[in-house]
Every structure is written in structure tokens, then in C-alpha cells.
């Protein structure tokens, strides 16, 4: 079958599944007084539409920062403003200042879901398609298989179209950045990534690899000649992008500082809620939040994160190939997730293990459906991968770590993890937790996930650090 037919069918299926998930509940549905992320996004539309820019990030009578105050960088605010203009055309009740708090209706839900779909269609999906078509190796069928797997990835669909967020936009922009770098258009790639950074500060997880890769690449080209020119071009692109995004806030330093304070809330403690990272899991054994002061917690996480990310970054600086860049992206984001400060479970967006969050939102059915479908699909489509040399690569990494353990142990580990995952999911839904441990299941799930992420982190670090110089591999 021709590529364009297969690709168009994959896209249609991806959009269909997304829209199907959107029929279900969203975060905070029908739960006053605070509701959830859905209400937060609606509130930002209200704030950005009705108030002047100078008041968006400040606490005023019209803008109560305790009720879902803006805590994303300016591009999110501009996006909300755009959506608000459209909302005003359809129904002004949706963005009425102070009068639209907790507004819920089927029409409004349709509108909000449509905004997420629009963002995906314009940014994320084209990036994925281009990535799979041009930056992956293999036959047409394999490329389409990869495309389908990425498009049907449950985590992103459930968070964006279920819980309600706009991660497709920031991830899409980052992907455009990766595309740019992969195709050799460094300036455009930097532009895209800068936009991503200005949309969600969470993209800082990916910032270091971008930086190291570009710096390393320019250094390769010679820091006195062409390399310097490329470096300057990239730097100028990034600075101009940032300037344009922050323009309204640069007139007054207090404005810029307030925005920074909102997007980096250092006063909130090492973590909130149950999240699958190191600190939350450590907290099970040592009550770290009560032992250390707030400042010490911040410095500790900063130091450990830096430590975790250094090997990968240095390797990338030394050998700035695209494959190294991709590995570094994985390692960097994992390091930040595992060790940094104030991580939210949504930051992971990896395996579909945000179960407690989804249960709270009433999204059990879509979770089950999309995860099962993804499992079935990826086993079928990507089974071919297991037969080629990638498998050797995978096992090589583990072998170096623990050479005495037999290979079958690692292969069966996948299935046993799967069984445990299913078991935990079922238990979380079906069984009531014991009286003395009300948070048993969320803690179990997050600890279980943490161990997997830690394992993945270690594994990918080994892979990245052990890839011999000059070996070109694309996935």
C-alpha cells in the first residue's frame, strides 16, 4: 500500500482515538470549589482576555493567584488569550470575568476539547509524521508502524484529551526542534525549542541536551571559523525568540521577576502528591521532607540532578552526533524527573503509569482501552525490532552492568513487570486499601514506577556512554 495511504490512515486513527477519549470525563469535573486543570485552563482564558498584561501574573482583586494563578511562561498565556477570543465569539459567558468560575457545559467541553485537537493537528501531529518519515530508518511499513505507535501512545492522549492539558503543543514544538537539528537546520530547530521552552518550563528537562549538542557541534566546526558563526546565529535566534515572548514583561524588572517566581515555585517543597521519582520513593523510608529545611531540599535536589545529568552531557559535548543527542534527551529528561524539585507526575509522560491521577479523574475505561491497545499494537508492530541487532545492543548494556545474570532474566522481566502493572491497576480499582495505610496503592504504583524509571535511566546512560565513537545509529 502506498505510504501516503498508510500515513493518512494512521493519522485518522490517531485523531479518532484522541476524540474518542475526549468524550470521557476531565480533571475536576463537577468538583467545586477548585475543580481541576480543565478549570485552570478556562480561568487563564478569562484572565488573559479581561485583564491587561501587567496584571496577568500578579495578585489583584480581579486575579486571585490562589485560584489557579498563571504558572506557565508567557507563550501559554498568549495561547490562552487566542482561545479566549474564539470563546468570546461563541459564548461570552465562558470567559466572563469572575462570573464564569466553574463554568461547565457540554458545549464548553466541546470547545475546550476542540482547542486541544487544533493544537495537536497544527503542531504535534505534523512533527510526528515528519519525524517518522524522514528521521527513521527502515522500510515503509516499519516507519508507519512507528508512526502509529507514537500517535497512539496512551500517556499523551490520556493527559491531553482526558485530564486536560496542552502537552501536545510543547512536546510538538520540542519535536520540531529535534527535527530541525536532525535535518541540519540548527537555527530553526533552536527557534522551535525556544518556543517550546517559553510554552512550558518543563521543557527545561530537554534543554541541556540541546545546548550540549549545539555547542559540541559548533566546537567541531572550529570555534574560530564556521563554528563561531553558527554559534552566534543560534544564540541570536534564541535570544530574539525569548525577547519576543517576554517583550511585554521586559519593561519593568519586577514584572519579569514575578513571572519567574510564578513559573519556578521554590517555596513549595521537594514534591507534592505521589510521584514516581526518587524523593517521593525515598520518603517512604526516610521522611526527608521533615528532616531537611526547604532551602536544603532545593540545594540537595539541584546537586543530585546536576550530578545525574553530567555524564550524559559531557559525552554529548564530546561526540555531538544525532544518535547521541537523542539518547541524551532521554537521559536528561529522566534525570530531571527522578531527582529535581517539585516534579508533578504528569512530567513523566512516559509509560501509562499515572494510574492514581487517572482514577481520580474518572478515566479508568480510556486508560484500560488505550494501554491495552498500545500494548497489543506495539507488540505486533515492533516485534520485528527484537530480532535485529537492536536487541544485542539492549542486552549488551545490561550485560555490562551485571555480567553474571543470565539473559532470560531480562526478557522475562518485561512480562513480569507487565503482570505486576496489570495486578496493581486491578487492585487499585477493585480493592479498598487497608485502614492503616490509606495511600497504599498510589505509593505502591509510584514506587514501582520509580524503580522502572531508575532502571531505564541507568540503562540508557550505559548505552549512551558506551557507544563507540563514530558509530551512526538512528532509531
Amino acid at each position, binding site marked *: *500500500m*502506498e505510504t501516503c*495511504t498508510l500515513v*493518512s*490512515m494512521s493519522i*485518522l*486513527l490517531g*485523531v*479518532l*482515538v484522541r*476524540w*474518542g*477519549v475526549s*468524550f*470521557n470525563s476531565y480533571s475536576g469535573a463537577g468538583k467545586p470549589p477548585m475543580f481541576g486543570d480543565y478549570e485552570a485552563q478556562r480561568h487563564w482564558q478569562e484572565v488573559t482576555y479581561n485583564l491587561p498584561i501587567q496584571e496577568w501574573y500578579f495578585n489583584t482583586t480581579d486575579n486571585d493567584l490562589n485560584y489557579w494563578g498563571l504558572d506557565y511562561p508567557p507563550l501559554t498565556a498568549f495561547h490562552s488569550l487566542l482561545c479566549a477570543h474564539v470563546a468570546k465569539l461563541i459564548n461570552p459567558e465562558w470567559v466572563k470575568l469572575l462570573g464564569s468560575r466553574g463554568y461547565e457545559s*457540554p458545549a464548553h467541553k*466541546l470547545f475546550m476539547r476542540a482547542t486541544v*485537537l487544533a493544537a495537536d493537528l497544527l503542531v504535534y501531529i505534523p512533527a510526528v509524521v515528519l519525524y517518522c518519515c524522514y528521521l527513521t530508518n527502515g*522500510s515503509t*511499513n*516499519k516507519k*508507519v*508502524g512507528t508512526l502509529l505507535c507514537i500517535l497512539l501512545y496512551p500517556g499523551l492522549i490520556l493527559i491531553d484529551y482526558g485530564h486536560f492539558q496542552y502537552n501536545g503543543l510543547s512536546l510538538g514544538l520540542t519535536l520540531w526542534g529535534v527535527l530541525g537539528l536532525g535535518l541540519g537546520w540548527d537555527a530553526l530547530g533552536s527557534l522551535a525549542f525556544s518556543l517550546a521552552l517559553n510554552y512550558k518550563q518543563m521543557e527545561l528537562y530537554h534543554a541541556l541536551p540541546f545546548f550540549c549538542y549545539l555547542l559540541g557541534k559548533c566546537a567541531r566546526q572550529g570555534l574560530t571559523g564556521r563554528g563561531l558563526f553558527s554559534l552566534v546565529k543560534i544564540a541570536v535566534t534564541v535570544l530574539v525568540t525569548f525577547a519576543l515572548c517576554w517583550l511585554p514583561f521586559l519593561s519593568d524588572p519586577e514584572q519579569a521577576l514575578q513571572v519567574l517566581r510564578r513559573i519556578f515555585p521554590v517555596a513549595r517543597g521537594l514534591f507534592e502528591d505521589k510521584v514516581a521519582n526518587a524523593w517521593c520513593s525515598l520518603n517512604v523510608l526516610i521522611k526527608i521532607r521533615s528532616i531537611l529545611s526547604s532551602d536544603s531540599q532545593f540545594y540537595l535536589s539541584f546537586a543530585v540532578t546536576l550530578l545525574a545529568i553530567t555524564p550524559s552531557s559531557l559525552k554529548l559535548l564530546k561526540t555531538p552526533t544525532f544518535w547521541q543527542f537523542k539518547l541524551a534527551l532521554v537521559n536528561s529528561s529522566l534525570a530531571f524527573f527522578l531527582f529535581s524539585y517539585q516534579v508533578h507526575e504528569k512530567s513523566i509522560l512516559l509509560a501509562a503509569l499515572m494510574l492514581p491521577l487517572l482514577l481520580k479523574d474518572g478515566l479508568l*475505561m*480510556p486508560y*484500560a*482501552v*488505550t494501554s*491495552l*491497545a498500545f500494548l*497489543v*499494537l506495539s507488540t*505486533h*508492530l*515492533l*516485534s*520485528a525490532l527484537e*530480532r535485529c541487532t537492536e536487541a544485542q545492543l539492549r542486552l549488551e548494556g545490561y550485560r555490562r552492568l551485571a555480567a553474571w545474570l543470565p539473559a532470560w532474566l531480562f526478557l522475562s522481566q518485561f512480562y513480569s513487570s507487565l503482570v505486576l502493572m496489570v495486578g496493581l491497576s486491578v487492585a487499585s480499582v477493585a480493592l479498598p486499601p487497608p485502614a492503616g495505610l490509606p495511600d497504599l496503592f498510589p505509593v505502591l504504583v509510584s514506587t514501582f514506577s520509580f524503580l522502572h524509571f531508575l532502571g531505564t535511566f541507568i540503562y540508557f546512560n550505559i548505552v549512551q556512554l558506551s557507544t563507540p565513537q563514530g558509530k551512526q545509529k538512528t532509531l
Partner: protein
Amino acid sequence: MAAPVESSGWFPALAIAVSLLKCLFINAYHSTDFEVHRNWLAITHSLPISRWYYENTSEWTLDYPPLFAWFEYGLSQAAVHFDRGMLVVENLNYASPATILFQRLSVVFADLVFIYAVKECCTTVREEKAAKDLLRRPCFVLAVLLLWNFGLFIVDHIHFQYNGFLFGFLLLSVARHLQARHLEGALWFSIVLNLKHINLYVAPAYGIYLLRCFCFTQDNTDGSLRWRSFSPVRLVSLGAVVLSVTAASFGPFVAMGQLPQVLSRLFPFKRGLCHAYWAPNFWALYNVLDKALSMLGVRLGLLDVAGLPKASMTGGLVQEFQHAVLPSVSPPTALLCTLLAMLPALWCVWRRPCGGRGFLRCLVQCALASFMFSWHVHEKAAPASGEHRRDAGIFLMLATTGHYSLFPLLFTPAEFPIKVLLMLLFTIYSFSALRNLFSGEGSLLHPLEALYLLGLVAVEVLCEVVFPLSPWQQTLPFVPLLVTSVYCALGVSYSFVRLYVSLLTQEVTEKTKRL
């Protein structure tokens, strides 16, 4: 899709994937048919058998044959564990989340019959050369076209019905006949007849075919009938199968003397020629012609406006009424037209059965004929078959037009992307797959046919985007339905004629070959 996939693993994967997709739409819009089935669950669970066909607290009275009532009774035993509230007859329009979950899941599970039937059909598909690429194998294409069928998806899993379940039995009986297991095929067909009596109209095809191929055991050397080879044993065994199923289904009601009541519920001839939304069949064209002629007549002064019947046919009321210019159509007339339309196909199968393929063609022809001419056809009756290799083009026309005609069923804005996406997905796949299967035999569609199909896009844009924003939305609200129905009726009628032409020319070439 990648080369090393095991050859047997793809079918379960397809089936699981489509079942999971169906589960995603549990919370989508559902029509009054949802309440219909909830009501039947309540009736069969809470009331004694003697009351089933008399109960009319709700307007949605039991109008399917008794075997379906038994099916609903079986479902209601499981429903008890979800929400007892749905089983109370007085709880009209009861739709708690548990009820919705149960009913939707019941459709998904009932589809297992359909999935099994598709599997059986795939094994009977003849493959002349085993293609290496899975996507190009006829059985794969057939499986996708059936399992992921747009019509079944929209009607069963969103609008809400059990057509997949019913169609599964029909398909299974067809598969058995193709495998020459005729008694079993007759069993499945009797079951489906007793589940939904609308399948009566393909009964002639079954009857003639079984009589010809099963009861007469041998043919003469030139293929014509050998009258001497009639086997009474076979006829009796066939009859026994059919009668025993019917007895199991209707038995209790005959014993209670309720047969007339049951039949009156099953065949409600008080309803009008066309449903509120006109099925795209012959009568839609007939009605439009009548309307056009009457308007012309008034304009030319030949007819008196006062003498014309009220223009309520397009108003959406389901009643009997008269046509203005052309002769009015009554139920017996419609039945006669249907039988006449089926006759050539039946004659072909009698004269020259051509094995299972001939039977299949006849079946499709009869189904289509009854859709075209029957009394009070629901739009959902549009068949979605087409395993004919030479008629791929006709299949594309019929399937695309038929599927598009289902669009008005989902009129809510939230479901709009669903129907468009699914339609595109199915249409792109069917065109591409069939073109690959028959590559090298020229293009499947005549340019005019392609133009007609593209016109569907224009009709869709006009009806769902342009018209609602125009001033006529208030005064003539039925126009989009009318336009959709008539436009699709053209396509369906055209396919009907072409199928017949293909059937009869094949007959002629067979004859000349033997001469």
C-alpha cells in the same frame, strides 16, 4: 505490518483493536434505540412471558421476534449485577452510567458472534496466489472491511443497535453454505430469522438455493436440473431444522394463543411508506418525483392546490398518506415490487447455481432488492456486503453511498468528527485495498462514478455546514435530510441496476460458452 509478523496473529489483533476502539465510544451520543433495548430488558426480566407482547407502558413496544426477546432476557440476567434500576419497566429513559456501560458492553460482547463469523468467512476466501505482504491478501482485506465496517460501527456502537450480532449469524450461515455444510447454514439462518424478521426478505434466496442445490442432489452433465435426483430426506431434514428453531422461538406464544398479537407487533403496517428520514431507496425517488410533478402541475395550472394532500411527507411524521400525482403505494404493492425485483436473481440461481458464489450474488441481490422496494425501510438496513471480485467497483459505489446515507443518524456536533474520521478511514482503506487487489485490471470506477462520489463531499458540506447557517434553516428544516436521501438513493439505485446487469450478463456468457 512488518514482514516477520506471524501469519495467524493478525486476525486476533484486528479483532481486539476494533473491540477496544468500540469501548472508547461508550460515553458518546446514543439514540432512542438505547431506551428501546433498556425497555425490552425490563420487560423480559420483570414481566411474565404472557405479558411480553402486550406490554405498552413505553412507546417502544417489543417488535422483534421471540428469540430476540429470549436474548434480551439472557442479557437481563447479567444486567442485574450492574444496575437493577434499568430493569424496572416504569423507569422510562433510565440511563445511569452503569446502565450505559452495561448496554454498550453487551453490544461489544455480542459482536463476538460477528467476529467468529468473519473468521469463518476468511477461511473460505479463495487465494489464487499467496501474497507475501499481509496487507495485500484478500482475506486480510475482507477481514478489515468487515470488522472495521463503518456502518456497523456507527449504527451499533454509537447510535445503538445489535446489528453486528445479527449480521454475524447471517454471515455464519453464508460461510457454512460456502463450505457445503448446508444443514448448519440453514440452522444459523433460521436463528437469525427468529431474531429479526427483517431478514425474511433474503429467505427466498435461501429457499430457492437450498431447494436447487441441496434437495436436488445431482445435476445433469450440462449443468441443468436433474429432476429425478430429488431427495425427500434432505427436504425433510431442512424443514425440521427450520421448524424446530421457529418452534423454540414462537412455541410458548402459540401455546398461549398469542400468535396474532405477536404478528401484529412484528408487522406494523400502519406506519408510512417512508420513515421520518427517508431511506435512500426507490420510494425516496418516487416521492420526490411525485412532489416535483405536483409542484409542476400547480405551476402549470393543471392541478388544484386545495385538492392536494398536505405536504406532510417531508415533515417527519410517520403516517400513511397519499401521493398527489403518481399512484399511491400500499403495503401489498410494495411487497409485489420487492418480489418482482428479486425474481431475476432467483431465476438465475435456479437455472445455474454456480456453487457458493452464485448463492452469494443472489443473496446480495435479494437484500438490495428488498431495501429498494420494501415498505417502511429503516436506513440502517443498507447492506454492507460485497465479496465479489469482479464487482469491486460496484461495491465501492454502494458501500460509500450507503455509509454516507447513515450520516444523518449522528447529528450531534460532538459526534461529527467521529463520523467524518471513520468514514474517511474506511473509504480510503477500501479504495486503496481493492485497487491493490485488482491492480492491472484498469481503474475500478468510471469517471462519472468517481464524480458522483466526490459529490458526496459537496452534499455533506452543504447540508452540515452551509445550510445551518443559511436563512432557510427555520422554514425548511427537512431539506438536508431530503437532499442526502435523494442523492444517496440515486447511487444505491444505480448500484442495484449495475449488479443486476453484471449478474445477467454473466448468465448470458455462461450460456454462450456452453453452446
